[in-house]
């Protein structure tokens, strides 16, 4: 239990830090900041799919690896609250088209990235 908590915490710090830096780094290159969060979330979905797919094709992974990488790192790297906050901002600006694009795109893109990760990891 204590060791497991250390693993989750050890993954969480670089995950959150990397998200912050990547979103800030991308900000000047993209029209709106929320597309940075969108990209981070899609990458996290692909990586988690890959991790789970690899586990299915290569046999059970050590639970420590899943806690460190899945729950800790990727869980902290991806975010739902920032996505919601940015969606809220777009909705408040009454930019309906962009809010549908951001909300729908995140869900559809996330599912597609997840499926791609699962398929890639699941290759024998």
């Amino acid at each position, binding site marked *: 239990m204590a060791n497991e908590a250390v693993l989750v915490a050890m993954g969480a710090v670089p995950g959150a830090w990397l998200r912050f830096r990547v979103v800030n780094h991308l900000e000047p290159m993209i029209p709106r900041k929320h597309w940075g969060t969108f990209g981070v979330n899609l990458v996290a979905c692909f990586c988690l799919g890959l991790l789970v797919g690899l586990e299915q094709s290569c046999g059970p992974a050590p639970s420590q690896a899943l806690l460190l990488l899945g729950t800790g790192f990727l869980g902290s790297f991806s975010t*739902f609250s920032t996505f919601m906050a940015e969606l809220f901002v777009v909705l408040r600006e009454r930019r309906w088209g962009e809010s549908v694009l951001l909300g729908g795109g995140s869900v559809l893109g996330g599912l597609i990235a997840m499926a791609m990760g699962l398929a890639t990891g699941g290759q024998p």
Partner: protein
Amino acid sequence: MNRSALTGSAMAMEVREIALVGAGAIPGALLRWQLESVGDHWVGGLQVAAESDLIANLLGCFCMGLVIAIRPPRPRLTLLAAIGFCGSLTTFSSWMLELAHAFSHGQGHDAIGVLLVSLVGGLLALVGGFCLVRLGERAFGSRRVGSSNGATRR
């Protein structure tokens, strides 16, 4: 000489940012991990909801609403609470994994239910937190309202 001093201060700032984001991220991720086991004995749609970190996500959105309502924005609080704590407490990847899992196991209705509850609930939780701070400002005669010059910042 000058350049090394500059690099030194940039590094000190970087370290301070890592410390703030990390100090928020650790309790956030640990709380999310513990909340995952809350729904261990639930079944059907509720189980999908619990495994997709719905509780953590809604809680995180509420906290995020509180933080973004504070004005003027406080950079250090944003790093610690919004980016660190709320960002780590909530997750997008597990949410998508559980939805993909439910869709592929013939639980399409549960998946769509969880999807809608997450999106609508997340927005409502965020707005709830946001409005709570705004109401508090009004009730307690906030000194900070409208202080765009930042003179009232501590």
